[in-house]
């Protein structure tokens, strides 16, 4: 096994072992060995996190493992992504996501955030009970192509509409695609409020994000 192959294996092993520290040190080793950072991501991290996503879909592993693998991926990406020139083919869109104002449920949001990360997106997680203006401000600050707004309660999905209305009113709608999801969210609701899509599952959310990312 060559030195590069060993580094790629170590990156994979770290993600599959849910080990953030090991992922960061494998990324550092890749940088020190002058491994192409895009190759380190695409051939090291991505196959591993895709495997994790697949295992989660089949319920062979559960939410904690998915999130820990996502954290490991994030630790390595934090070191590797800055080395990839902006606009190169490996860099996918940035997604800012959170649970809407008045809603503190985070499981659905965490699953989608981890799966997006697994799909190679740069995810900025804003947490729960996020104000409408914070979604928009953070999307601007991070140059995010996509805003992901999660809501679990029938009484809180109105805030998803507020994000879109705010973007329209402030002339920023074309800059940011908005994906909605969560317990009471339906495709009809998504259409009614003018969202760019509704992820009924985490897998569907990633698929939608990929479509939007390609349209850039």
């Amino acid at each position: 096994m060559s030195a590069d192959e060993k580094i790629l294996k170590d990156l994979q092993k770290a993600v599959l072992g849910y080990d953030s520290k090991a992922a960061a040190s494998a990324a550092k080793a890749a940088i020190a060995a002058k491994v192409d950072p895009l190759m380190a991501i695409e051939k090291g991290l991505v196959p591993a996190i895709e495997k994790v996503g697949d295992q989660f879909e089949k319920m062979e592993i559960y939410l904690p493992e998915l999130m820990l693998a996502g954290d490991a991926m994030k630790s390595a990406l934090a070191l590797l992504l800055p080395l990839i020139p902006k606009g190169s083919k490996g860099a996918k869109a940035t997604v800012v996501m959170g649970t809407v104002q008045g809603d503190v449920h985070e499981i659905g949001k965490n699953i989608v955030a981890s799966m997006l990360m697994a799909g190679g997106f740069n995810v900025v997680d804003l947490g729960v009970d996020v104000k409408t203006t914070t979604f928009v401000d953070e999307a601007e600050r991070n140059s995010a192509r996509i805003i992901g707004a999660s809501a679990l309660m029938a009484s809180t999905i109105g805030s998803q509409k507020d994000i879109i209305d705010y973007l329209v009113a402030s002339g920023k709608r074309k800059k940011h695609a908005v994906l909605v999801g969560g317990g009471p969210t339906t495709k009809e609701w998504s259409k009614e409020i003018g969202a760019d899509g509704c992820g009924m599952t985490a897998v569907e959310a990633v698929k939608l994000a990929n479509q939007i990312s390609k349209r850039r």
Partner: protein
Amino acid sequence: MVQILDIMDKALNGKPMSETDYQLKVFAPKVQEKVREHGIKFDRENPIPQDSSMADEVFEAGLELLLDTGAFCTSSGRTITFTEQEVRESLRRAPSKLYFGEGQDRKALVARTVGDKTPPWCLLGAGGGPCSSDRSFLTLVEGYAEIPETNAITTPALTRVGGMRVRPASPLEVLAAQRNAVLAREACNRAGRQGIPIMNSLATAESDIAFAAALHPKFGMRDSDGYMICCMDPMKVDFARLNKAAVALSLGGHIGMCFGPLLGGYAGGPEGTAVSNVAHHMMGVLTYQSSWLLPFTIHLRYVASSPRDMLWVISMMGQAISRNTHLLSLNLNYTTAGPCTPMCLFETSASVTAAVTAGLSIESLGVATNKHEDRTTPVEPRISAEVGHAVAGMKLADANELVKGLLKKYESKLNEPPLGKSLYECWDGEARKPTKEYHKVIMRYKRDMRDLGVDLRPEA
């Protein structure tokens, strides 16, 4: 006895840690450790487990889990821990009987045991499902009040007020919660059951301010209603929820903590989810001073309580609780399929059977994953209650065979369940009965149930 001031003291002075660390580094591994230590194993072939010693292990594992991890307060970023003495004392002091309602509708919710012939307490309705209008709300709640087995009502949640969609913690939510209280009482009055308790008070009030605002006596809520306050998975509370508890306690209302550890979530698979449910029961009694409990575990993939592994979780945690405590616990179930489909009725029959034969009472139900506006009718809770009464006293082994028979009818369709019809497409509000089409579905369903050995009330 642990009281609200003690909880605040613990929440302000407990061990500081991040929410993520609590969930991923403390709670999740500890659940799996308990599952291993106690040898708890899910048996796919037997969705209704019959090993009472394993149920007792699940109970002990749940107790140890709570002692080891405590709950977590997201407002203070600290754990809320309890001593074994506090937990055992709170279980000993918890009521085994509570009265709800007024006049003729004042009834006792009593603790049940595994295989108990006592009919379950039937908290019937929409389980907080979304409802688009005052008209739909009244139609549904009147229908629920007319069900003979109804002991208490679980209302839908209004999504609009004054033509505007509700916004959380806004005046719209305050007004919607107040309207929720007024309309629920009005619907019961119209059905001639003025004293019936509303036990998911208040479904429309997600925020503490809306909850408190709607409890003013002029909106009709009573201290004989049930005050449901949710916690977040896993075992997380915040000051807003504790505010609700403080307000309900000040009214003398009976608090029921509802909790829904996801199967596939932080507790992992069915074994860990059963253990987590037991721990949540105890946490509810301590943290909110809950006098009754409302587990509503749902499946991460199907968002329902009817899949095989979910039935095992319901039965296992129910047996663990009813064999080892006298807690008043009601299981809330969700279906994947919608109204006017046999699948929806089979799904609720399976979940109710799992709960009732394990010694739990029922809240029934969230239809079609409880996410679609006005996609529920009074038929589904009525059928759930009929099944609940019919299977009371059934042995676990017989319940296992019944549930296996029911699973054969819907398990293969869980990935793509039929959504069925909406409220007015299959319920005649004027005649107060299902449409002819739905009536036929019910007749067919009851014939199938008879073939499975369960005789339900003949349809009119």
